[in-house]
């Protein structure tokens, strides 16, 4: 095999392989600290916004327990009716429903990201974090590309199929080289994705260096993924949907106290099972 004949200078190990790894670890730790410095204190929610969200929780609890509800029928009905009317009238909304000149309800405009200062702030925070993630990565990548382009750094101790060639030998175009040889740029990528475990040991599990946004913030992933559950949801729509779900839940409602006398008597063998 062609790969067997390759001999790597130990200086490559000392001056390229280890420095790249070390620099990446240190940058990860530095990034963790920088993110902590940049992080603005969590914004407090107003009373109304909390109320809006807890109302949703309230309806979900009621709905999810409906199959073996701890509430007797009359109580369950009262709870459901109260919530359904409140939702349909928008009593829990933090911003009241606007009414047009004909008296029709206009659903509040889902506040545009660009006009709501609170949303802007959140977006700025996200962007700052992403910058802190991306800029060092780009600098390191440039550094590696500039100084160590085309270097072969390490030989993996196990054989791999040809499919890994593009992953392990990025930056060197040799069709014949054994897949086990790893190029400098690939070593960088392996470190980038592989160091998360180490950061978790060094910095604790909720550090900023390993965060789950890692993939999203990589320059290769599209960063257009919208935040799924931001503060900009249209609660009116959600509440209307909830009120329908609640009415469905009424159909599957069963009281845990229904037939309990038989269950208990059967349990203690007083009536045949």
């Amino acid at each position, binding site marked *: 095999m062609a790969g067997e004949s390759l001999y790597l200078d130990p200086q490559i190990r000392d001056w390229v392989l280890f420095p790249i790894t070390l620099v990446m670890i240190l940058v990860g730790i530095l990034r963790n600290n920088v993110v902590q410095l940049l992080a603005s204190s969590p914004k407090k929610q*107003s009373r109304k916004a*909390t109320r809006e969200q807890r109302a949703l929780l*309230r309806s979900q609890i*009621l709905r999810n327990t409906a199959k073996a509800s*701890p509430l007797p029928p009359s109580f369950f009905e009262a709870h459901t009716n109260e919530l359904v009317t409140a939702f349909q009238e928008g009593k829990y909304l933090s911003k009241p429903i606007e009414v047009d000149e004909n008296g029709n309800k206009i659903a509040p405009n889902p506040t545009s990201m660009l006009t709501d200062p609170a949303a802007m702030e959140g977006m700025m925070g996200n962007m700052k974090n992403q910058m802190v993630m991306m800029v060092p990565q780009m600098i390191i990548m440039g550094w590696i590309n500039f100084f160590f382009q085309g270097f072969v750094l390490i030989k993996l101790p196990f054989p791999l199929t040809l499919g890994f060639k593009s992953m392990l030998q990025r930056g060197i175009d040799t069709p014949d080289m054994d897949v086990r040889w790893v190029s400098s740029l690939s070593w960088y990528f392996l470190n980038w994705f592989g160091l998360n475990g180490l950061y978790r040991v060094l910095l604790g599990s909720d550090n900023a260096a390993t965060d789950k946004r890692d993939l999203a913030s990589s320059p290769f992933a599209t960063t257009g993924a919208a935040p799924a559950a931001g503060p900009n949801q249209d609660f009116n729509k959600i509440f209307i949907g909830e009120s329908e779900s609640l009415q469905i839940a009424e159909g599957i409602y069963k009281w845990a*106290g229904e037939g309990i006398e038989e*269950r208990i*008597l059967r349990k203690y063998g007083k009536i045949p099972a």
Partner: protein
Amino acid sequence: MASSLTVPQAIQELKIAQARGHRDSNEIVRKGLFVLEQKNGLKMLGEDVWDFLEQMAVAALDIGQLELADDCIQRLAEQFPKSPRVEVLQGQRIEAKDLDMAIKYYETLLDADETNVAAWKRLISVLRQQNKMDRCISELTEFLDTFYSDLEGWLELADIYASVNLYTRSLQALSHALLLAPQNPFHTLHFAETAYTANDIPLAIRYFLRTTELCGDDSRGVARRAWFGVRLCTKHLTLHPDSPSESATKPMSTSSLNALGELATERLLAAYSSTSEKAVVPGRKEVLKLLGGSGTSR
């Protein structure tokens, strides 16, 4: 006894008491003072020293050792100026002096930050201490409307309603507690007993039974109390088959009621019998009397 206590042990026990929320203030202050008296006691606490001081402050206030509390709060205030937790502690210190002033203090805190949960809760508790039930109930309802998932809040509301004899209202508050913690037999028992007091016996018996079901095979504590409840309900329902039920709960069949009455008697007798011959379980005589007396009327 104090001589056998070591500092790490005392710290450990204090931590456990804090995690479990024990209200054993005398013991906490005793152990806390013991730690403080050691030369390097505070150093051994390390990072936990602030938690320790907070715990001490509350316990000291609870047993009226105001100077100790002042000392703790002062140290905390120096370390964490403007911390909401310290602000609430300072509020509790004011409560020890003057309740009206405390109300004003908490109101200013809430004006500054309307979502200060701790201050809001303290305000409600001060209102209750002052017996201002109207405002207390309206504040608490507003609090629960905002922070629905606060289980203690619902229990407190139920307790307040029960204290002013509004048992149906109390039941409604408890129903929210049941929704939030459907697995907790204590709440089920509480609901059952409140229903019993509100004279909704058909509802009560189902919840007493539900409590025993939730407790599994255990027949101590909550479950035993629930069996007493079942016994009382079956007796009442056999004597008055058309007991009113505000919740429109369907009455049970007479045969089930009889069987349940027998079962409850059996469970209670088992609970009050001991396996050894000589030892008599305390209260056995009274229970036998109760069961026997009602047994004939069945």
